[in-house]
């Protein structure tokens, strides 16, 4: 069977599965729509959280990013896993005990303020929409690459599928489809990795192959990699050009941002008990770690494979480079997508791949008769082309396509759901039309989800300039706005309404302002985005960490000089600190 047919079958089967689950898990109450009736098993929820969390970026782009960043890619590995410790120990059990439906609801109640709740809703919507636009884009791209349809068609199909299970099933439908999506994506990710690990090192476990010797030699893979990349003028794989403070700040912003992302937090509202919320975070991290510890191995192996495919002999030797006409089939196939391109600058019919930005090496390259780097490789190719590089059968390639789509859809659905919950529950039900019946609220939630899907699809098709900066934005804002106020709401009885609102606004405005200054969202950048212009040498990706500190500081200072929270709020904080007496998340 040819690849396209197989891909259609794999993707089609996975879609049929998602829709089947949606029909089976149809939500009939607001409790089911918002938090799956709080009846989800903690291990199942851990799996759903893992799929919710791992987006198109984790699945498609991360290993490629690490392949080219080397040690610098560690910020994503630690940053996107370490937040689960914060979730498990500082947030999830207490918010579960509180037993409501949304994150802004907790903030509004704890700080006895409708304004605080609305500020939280604004943060949430901003964070979630920037994030979801990137996901929809991912869906469109995967469709167009593997199924040979244009991006718009791909987007519409993706939107249709999410529409069916998110609008119909609400959180209940999303939870169980995410479980199925996790299974699809983890198999699709690990199977090619295992084969490549085995081919390269003889050890089939990628995490171990990473530290093994290359087949037929006594060289450790990482040593070999350091050697081959430095010979071509690149930075040593196990080092980075980023400053320590920047690495530190980016990791912190990503970790704290993870713990502050509403679509992740809300997953812990769906388990029956406080102790389930704790263990569920552990399971989520285990399921995430399977991919996250495989990714750096995939990155390193792919970098080594790619470099050795092109640099076939000693650097600078007459026959040391790959002859263009003899390049492998996978290269030809990916050229047509534009993700891989070759330009024969010196007209020798061979491919030279080296770091021409390194002046010292470029001078040496001139002597070899090289006239610049001739190969351009997109990060995303590292995972997508993996099965072809390893010459795996077509069904594996089809599986990777289904996996990429699963990763993007599961995250998009989770995000769309928190957006719609916030609109129907936090804005309409609680602020504007409090006398809605449950039935009306459920309908409103569904309409909000449908509208959100439409907007997300539009943003995916016409990405505003900032979609590429999604990471910096969504994580920075979550770290600087929501995370600190939730923590303070639980761990301090003295932080009051004024402190929380001032803190959130400070964190939000500072972080947004900093990112806009250097990245220029909607306007042209005000300052060049280079280290010498940054505050303390911290890049816009890491500035959320500083925003978080400011949020804490301002909230403490303002709370000190204004009236203490009322006694009933202090009692409420006491109440959420102990597990006993937690009921199901009920409407109220």
């Amino acid at each position, binding site marked *: 069977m040819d690849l396209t047919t197989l891909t259609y079958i794999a993707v089609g089967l996975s879609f049929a599965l998602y829709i089947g689950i949606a029909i089976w898990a149809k939500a009939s109450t607001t409790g089911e729509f918002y938090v799956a009736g709080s009846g989800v098993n903690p291990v199942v929820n851990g799996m759903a959280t893992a799929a919710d969390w791992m987006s198109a970026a984790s699945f498609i782009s991360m290993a490629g990013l690490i392949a080219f960043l080397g040690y610098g890619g560690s910020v994503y590995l630690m940053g996107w896993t370490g937040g689960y410790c914060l979730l498990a120990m500082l947030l999830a059990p207490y918010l579960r005990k509180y037993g409501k439906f949304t994150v802004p609801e907790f903030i509004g109640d704890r700080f006895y303020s409708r304004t605080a709740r609305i500020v939280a809703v604004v943060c949430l919507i901003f964070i979630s929409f920037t994030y979801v636009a990137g996901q929809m884009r991912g869906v469109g791209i995967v469709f167009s690459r593997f199924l040979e349809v244009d991006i718009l068609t791909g987007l519409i199909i993706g939107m249709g599928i999410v529409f069916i299970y998110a609008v119909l099933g609400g959180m209940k439908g999303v939870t169980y489809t995410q479980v199925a999506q996790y299974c699809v994506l983890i198999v699709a990710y690990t199977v090619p990795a295992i084969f490549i690990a085995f081919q390269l090192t003889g050890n089939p476990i990628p995490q171990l192959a990473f530290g093994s010797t290359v087949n037929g030699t006594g060289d450790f893979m990482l040593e070999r990699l350091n050697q081959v990349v430095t010979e071509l003028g690149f930075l040593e794989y196990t080092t980075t050009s980023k400053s320590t403070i920047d690495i530190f700040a980016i990791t912190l912003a990503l970790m704290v941002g993870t713990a502050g992302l509403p679509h992740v937090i809300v997953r812990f509202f769906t388990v029956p008990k406080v102790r389930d919320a704790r263990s569920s975070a*552990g399971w989520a991290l285990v399921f995430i770690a399977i991919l*996250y510890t495989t990714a750096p191995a995939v990155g390193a192996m792919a970098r080594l494979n790619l470099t050795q495919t092109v640099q076939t002999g000693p650097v600078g030797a007459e026959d040391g480079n790959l002859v263009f006409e003899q390049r492998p089939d996978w290269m030809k196939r990916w050229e047509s997508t534009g993700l891989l391109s070759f330009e024969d600058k010196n007209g020798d019919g061979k491919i030279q791949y080296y770091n021409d930005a390194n002046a010292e090496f470029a001078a040496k390259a001139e002597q070899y008769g090289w006239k610049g780097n001739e190969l351009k490789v997109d990060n995303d190719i590292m995972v997508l082309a993996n099965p072809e590089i390893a010459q795996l059968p077509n069904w594996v390639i089809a599986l990777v396509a289904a996996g990429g789509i699963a990763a993007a859809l599961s995250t998009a659905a989770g995000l769309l759901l928190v957006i719609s919950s916030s609109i129907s529950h936090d804005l309409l039900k609680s602020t504007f039309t409090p006398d809605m019946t449950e039935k009306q609220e459920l309908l409103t939630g569904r309409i909000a989800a449908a509208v959100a899907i439409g907007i997300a699809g539009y943003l995916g098709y016409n990405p505003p300039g900032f979609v590429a900066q999604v990471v910096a934005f969504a994580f920075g804002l979550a770290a600087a706005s929501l995370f600190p106020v939730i923590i303070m709401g639980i761990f301090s009885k003295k932080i009051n309404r004024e402190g929380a609102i001032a803190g959130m606004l400070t964190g939000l405005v500072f972080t947004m302002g900093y990112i806009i200054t250097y990245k220029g969202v909607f306007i042209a950048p005000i300052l060049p985005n280079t280290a010498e212009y940054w505050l303390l040498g911290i890049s816009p990706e890491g500035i959320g960490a500083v925003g978080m500190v400011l949020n804490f500081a301002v909230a403490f200072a303002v709370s000190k000089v204004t009236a203490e929270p009322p006694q009933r709020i202090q009692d409420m904080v006491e109440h959420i600190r102990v597990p006993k007496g937690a009921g199901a998340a009920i409407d109220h």
Partner: protein
Amino acid sequence: MDDKSGAEYWRRNVKLVLTLLVIWFVVSYGFGILFVDALNTITFAGFQLGFWFAQQGSIYVFAILIFVYVRQMNKLDREFNVREDE
């Protein structure tokens, strides 16, 4: 639960969390970032140690920390009789 044991429960909870977060900080920000160069002079099983902590080790430790937390908190809940449904 009276106020006194409530305060004690909370104190022990916070102490546990702080202890675990110190380890969390040391393996990631310490071993993986601040002291990465020093640790990279040590190699074991084909890895430079600092690099291994940054790309593998810290993630394993994170997962272990959460399960230790779950276990210890369940014990604490029982000791103070604040476990749900019991």
